[in-house]
């Protein structure tokens, strides 16, 4: 039983990874701008994507067809905000890890966990009343929260089929802020935006994998 397992695993490794090569490639930094809407409440987001890893994958299917895609990994930093009238405005800074998989056609999917700091600004004048009944206004009242965001989305990279160095994307994120009233606050956010590939690059060792299925 054990021998069968070892044989199977070895065979899989030998036959599926036919060729791995390593090349140096220049990967552009990306600049992201998006409309960061929380359902009907407007917001904006901007950030940078720092290329960290790229793997070119080519798969040969049993049908004889070839399927290739690129796995990119970015470290990201984003400044985001939304405006929820009468509730709060929220400005939040996040750093994250974006995993993007781009097909040769240009379509991509991505997933990105992020962590950051949020500062809310209450949606109305905020007062303090002391024990003697004296009333004063608190300027820029709001709260700091730790923020975790998890999101996934789809997009299209125009540079794969044309010379245009940008992508468009749509993404659904769930923001979690804590401690919010001794518990957590959840907020769904939809991002629709554009990612521009900058003309400054980072040289990366790019692995190319070829797999047979």
């Amino acid at each position, binding site marked *: 039983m054990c021998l069968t397992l070892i044989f199977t695993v070895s065979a899989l490794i030998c036959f599926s990874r036919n060729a791995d090569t390593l090349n140096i490639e220049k990967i552009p930094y990306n600049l992201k701008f998006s409309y960061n809407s929380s359902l*009907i*409440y407007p917001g*904006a987001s*901007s950030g940078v994507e720092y290329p960290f890893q790229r793997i070119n994958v080519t798969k040969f299917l049993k049908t004889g067809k070839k399927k290739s895609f690129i796995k990119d990994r970015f470290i990201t930093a984003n*400044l985001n*905000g939304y*405006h*929820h*009238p*009468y*509730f*709060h*405005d929220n*400005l939040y800074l996040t750093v994250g890890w974006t995993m993007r998989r781009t097909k040769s056609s240009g379509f991509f999917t991505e997933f990105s966990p992020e962590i950051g700091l949020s500062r*809310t*600004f*209450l*949606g*109305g*004048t*905020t*007062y*303090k*009343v002391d024990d003697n*009944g004296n*009333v004063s*206004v*608190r*300027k*820029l*009242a709001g*709260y*700091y*929260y730790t923020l975790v965001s998890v999101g996934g989305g789809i997009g299209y990279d125009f540079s794969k089929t044309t010379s245009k160095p940008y992508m468009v994307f749509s993404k659904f994120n769930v923001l979690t802020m804590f*401690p*919010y*009233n*001794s*518990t*957590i*606050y*959840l*907020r*769904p956010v939809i991002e629709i935006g554009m990612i521009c590939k900058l003309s400054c690059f980072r040289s990366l060792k790019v692995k190319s994998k070829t797999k047979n299925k």
Partner: protein
Amino acid sequence: MKQIIFIVAVSILLASCQKEKITIGTNVSDTFYLDNAGESMRILVEGNTSSKTFVLFVHGGPGSGSFVYNTDYISQNIENKYAVVYWDQRNAGASQGNSNDNHLNLPQMTDDLKKVIQLIKARYGQNSFVFLLGHSFGGLLTSSFMTKDNNQSMVKGWIYVDGSQNYPLNDTLTRQMLLKVGHEQVAINKNTDQWNTIISYCNGHPGNFTIGESEQLGTYATDAETYIDVVTPFNYVNALLGYAVEDKLPLTAILINHLYSSNASFNNDLAKTEFSSVLYKVVTPTLILFGEYDFICPKELGYEVFNRINTNDKKIVISPISGHNLIFQDQVLFCNEVNSFIELHK
């Protein structure tokens, strides 16, 4: 550089958003916050502030929030005459804070309520009249407020709607009512399966209720009014969702605050809390409104308030078509009675 410009632009926008807005008029909508003991509580004032008369809604729950009371009917029938104050208590509705569970207790909420009234008078004039309206848990909170120190001198009247001033008594009365009405309904062959389940539970739990038993009685009490044909149906979630976009409700905050508050440890203290023994301190004019089929806070609680308060200026009205949400289930009666009471005492 672009990011710096963005930060500056957003900062300017935010600073402008918090500009103080105090509106005196006949169709006002002002939102502001009271910051007290680790919580920023949302207050919405709508309606006729030029009347200098404010009806302050103290919502139920704990943790339910005040958004649900802001209906079109109340806008058209009370806000046109007076201003209505929708206050989200701590850890409820759109109220916000950090880690503040150590402040989530009835004495702190009583202090919050006092400061809300002080703030209303500071904003709209010390000559403003405030009428306090407590619904459900708001009955307990307003009972606490009205019987503490000289607080009642801050209000012109107390409106007590489907409230509870005595949680241990409340559980006993709920059980008695479930049994009484349950037997009547079984006798006329109405929803017999559901009523038999309730009757069986009540017979098996005669008194000295634990928190779990109290919650189960509450669940049966909520269901029970839906088995009575004459009671106007009311669905809290639907009522809230109906105004979600128009009133820009922070739905996830409302839900999370409600879940947290209704399960917070201070509910254990509330289960032992009563103000029946100190109601004699109340000398303020009082209007008591209850639903005939309120199993959650049975009308006997209203009669107890009526009998114990120390004023002759009092009235009790029972709505024959209401359960626990008379404000919504018998809107005409509610608005007529509230308006008449205010006209008489402002």
